[in-house]
């Protein structure tokens, strides 16, 4: 970690409009939870609703979007707008720069994902029973880290990381993972659900993951390490040409 890189990255991220969008998205999750609390039922129906809300809105929508926007902004957007050169032309190892950027993206994602998920779970009134809120929050934190590593690496592989990231989330995770069991293995959403399922005492009708915990942890770990290693390699070999060449 390099504190100066972290500070610069954080200030640059906070200045981007996309962060505002993410705050709105997180606020929407909380708003739905508040509305349910005011109008919805209690008991197991509330548990099922909470589980659905945290799974479909929290893990399936908020988590990948936050990680995608922060992960691609933290380094890819700086390379795009030309400011990255001021960090890269310094005697700091590229791995340190990468780890710092990844850490900022991951911490930001956890704050904007895991925290609202926990709060939403607590607000509905059913999330604290059986530890659903905490389980989903921990799952979201782990999932955010893996997503960020993937999206940071993607931003170093292609200039269209946002599009490819969205395709992964919508097509691979949203469509293919529902149709073919094999594709679920490489779905961060499914890995996160497996972690949430393992951490809660909720009955099967409230939450059932489609991936077993061991597979989720092993594949998630491989994705995290693999994406980080790829990102470091790409950053070390990143070429920057002048405007007029």
């Amino acid at each position, binding site marked *: 970690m390099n504190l100066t890189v972290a500070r610069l990255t954080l200030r640059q991220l906070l200045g981007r409009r996309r962060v505002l969008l993410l705050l709105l998205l997180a606020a929407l999750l909380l708003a739905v939870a508040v509305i349910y609390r005011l109008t919805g039922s209690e008991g197991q129906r509330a548990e099922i609703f909470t589980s659905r809300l945290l799974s479909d809105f929290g893990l399936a929508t908020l988590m990948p979007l936050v990680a995608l926007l922060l992960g691609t902004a933290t380094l890819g957007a700086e390379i795009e*707008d030309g400011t990255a050169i*001021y960090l890269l032309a310094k005697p700091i190892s590229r791995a340190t720069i990468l780890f710092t950027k990844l850490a900022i993206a991951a911490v930001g994602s956890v704050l904007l994902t895991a925290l609202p998920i926990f709060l939403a779970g607590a607000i509905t009134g059913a999330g604290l029973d059986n530890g659903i809120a905490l389980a989903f929050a921990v799952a979201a934190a782990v999932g955010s880290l893996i997503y960020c590593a993937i999206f940071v690496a993607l931003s170093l592989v292609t200039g269209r990381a946002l599009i490819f990231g969205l395709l992964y989330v919508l097509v691979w995770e949203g469509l293919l993972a529902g149709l073919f069991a094999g594709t679920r293995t490489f779905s961060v959403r499914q890995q996160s659900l497996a972690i949430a399922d393992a951490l809660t005492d909720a009955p099967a009708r409230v939450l059932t993951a489609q991936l077993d915990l061991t597979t989720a942890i092993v594949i998630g770990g491989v994705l995290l390490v693999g994406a980080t290693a790829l990102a470091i390699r790409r950053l070390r070999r990143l070429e920057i040409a002048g405007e*007029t*060449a």
Partner: protein
Amino acid sequence: MTGQVAAAGIAVDHVARWYGNVVAINDVSFTLNGGVTGLLGPNGAGKSTLLHMMSGFLRPSAGTVAIEGKAPWADPEIYRRIGLVPERESAYTFLTGREFVVASARLQKLPDPAAAAARAIGLVELESAADRAIGTYSKGMRQRVKVAASLVHDPAILLLDEPFNGMDPRQRLHMMELLRRLGSEGRTIVFSSHILEEVGRLAEQVLVIVAGRLAASGDFREIRRLMTDRPHTFTVRSSDDRRLASVLVAQPTIAGVALEDGMLTVRSNDFGAFSRTISGLARRAGVSLHELLPTDESLESVFSYLVRR
């Protein structure tokens, strides 16, 4: 910042760089040891590519680049010795000038970042605007804050890509004075420019890059002479073009004369002699000169001549 530093070497040996099928730099070799060197060439000639290879941001496709004997490609440690001023205007617009330079000092792991930043800001005379956000800076001020950030660690080698872009004449003069002083202290300063006069006023030595090749190198005056003494073509309008043509064709400094479409075109091998003698020759022949226009004075045509030479 003012201390003497040991001369630092840049060695470029048979370097080429291509992007797919496009050759950006083709078999360029030179060595630089201290002083101010201008990379001169038209836009798109490959100056930036060359600078980015020297600064470790582009890998040569062939040949070698060495900074003090070490290849700069993928070696961040080289940035303790190099300062780089990129052409692109981008900067952290949300930071003040001082915050930007202090951040650079911290990233260089200097013991007293605030003092180093204050010195560098003083060097580029940006004290009065140092505590304003870079977003409010003019183009020239942004250039200067970039130079301050690149100087903060007192590098032995300073690479600047089109550093005078957007500067007003006073800022330009000041920057030239600064670079000249840094060069006289033993640093190796390399800057790129497509403006002949800029390079002429600052650089002790010049590397002329045209279409990816090193077209000429050496002392600026020598290159200026080569450029001046190249064959020049003029169009002439006079009271009697035919008579003037017959007089001119007998002169040893005239390489060719053409009378086409009522227009007299003259090609001279010696710009100086031709411009000194034409009016006397015309007068003696009883011909009045109405107009004498050089036809190929664009920088591109000058550079093309150097390549063909």
